């Protein structure tokens, strides 16, 4: 292992509290990442302070709505727009909301769409 990576699992309602805790401790927002796992979507909020890597993990259902953390970390708006566009995660109150015009993909929410490429691949040939 090159580095320790701690992951803290939490609930949807604890999100803003936990993130503001990190903010007040002087952590830097390293990244936000989304993973589609069948019927749940896993969201990782990663923070870094002096090379210590911490991870907040949140599991939600695809139709659940979460709060934006861009009121705490302004720079989160790029990640959150990406999530709502590629994974269809509903996020409330993003500071700069592109409303689906961030990437403008050929397929809507390509990472969760059911078998999005099966139809497309044949069309392309």
């Amino acid at each position: 292992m090159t580095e320790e990576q701690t992951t803290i699992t939490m609930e949807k309602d604890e999100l803003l509290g936990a993130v503001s805790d990190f903010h007040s401790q002087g952590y830097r927002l390293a990244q936000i990442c989304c993973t589609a796992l069948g019927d749940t979507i896993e969201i990782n909020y990663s923070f870094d302070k002096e090379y210590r890597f911490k991870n907040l993990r949140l599991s939600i259902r695809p139709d659940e709505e979460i709060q934006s953390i861009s009121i705490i970390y302004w720079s989160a708006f790029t990640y959150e727009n990406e999530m709502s566009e590629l994974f269809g995660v509903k996020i409330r109150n993003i500071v700069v909301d592109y409303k689906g015009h961030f990437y403008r993909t050929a397929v809507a929410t390509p990472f969760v769409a059911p078998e999005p490429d099966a139809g497309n691949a044949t069309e392309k040939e």
Partner: protein
Amino acid sequence: MSQRNVIPFGPQHPVLPEPIHLDLVTEDETVIEAIPSIGFVHRGLEKLVEKKDYQDFVYVAERICGICSFMHGMTYCQAVEEIMEIAVPERALYLRTVWAELSRIHSHLMWLGLAADAFGFESLFMNCWRLREGILDIIEATTGGRVIFGSCKIGGVRRDIDDETMKGIVEKLGTIGAEIGRTTDVFLNDYSVQHRLKGIGVLSGEEAHALGTVGPVLRASGVAMDARKIDYAAYRNLKFEPVVEKAGDCHARCRVRVREIFQSVDLIGQAARKMPGGEIFVKVTGAPNGEFFSRVEQPRGEVIYYVKANGTKNLQRFRVRTPTFANLPAMVKMLEGASIADVPNIILTIDPCISCVER
């Protein structure tokens, strides 16, 4: 109260070799607000892991970006190696370090050239790119490729550099280094360069930290954060300190990159001296199961790879957070209040790599 205009910038713009679009809301000559819109290079290659074997995916990872291609391959390999708990041979780690540092030198020289082009110093641009060819020659001689190296694989590296060649590389870097020094003196001392870059696009240390910036942009604002200090590859055995500048303006970012070139030359020298013998790869069988966030310092800053695997040949999720993606919010903040004439300079000083951002 003057009138507000919206000036479109890009996607096809003479200053940028890559497409990014900005809507600049201006009042007279001053930018009030900048709204970036991306998606011109979005390919969706993260989704490709579901179709490709995890070992073959190294090739795709290398093609995320053609400038730091080796480092993308390396970060991906590190992530998979961590999950599978593979002990990579020491010599392979040193070789990776050498190639990574060579990529950094060529990327920074390229950036210096593009920056010179952005403020209209054509001969300086040409000179930087001429020097860069010297570095590319070394890369081509050792890996066979100028842009895509293809020398990194899971479990080690594909090609070895013998000691004689390594000595030659260090010698050649010495002579190129002296030439680079003469050219970079222009960036550091020339009056007109300073006139264009000093006091432009100032980002304070607190702001840079709050906006989550990484790499030279963060270090130019006085924050010593260099992901190489995480001690991946052979960096744990090499001596270096993150290059830090205080001013936080465009010229400081330029100075950071200039100094990093020489730091990289020094690191390659150290690595050449300390490089142990032995195998350059271990055979990898099976499939990964687990997850890891792999972090590497690229020329543009810290890159984060998230790999999640479930024990099959295809990964479950692969995600790249590239340094330029993290620096975009800072760019937007810096553009607010800047003059229209300085917009290209400010955009260029974050060293945007759009194909990284959009993947």
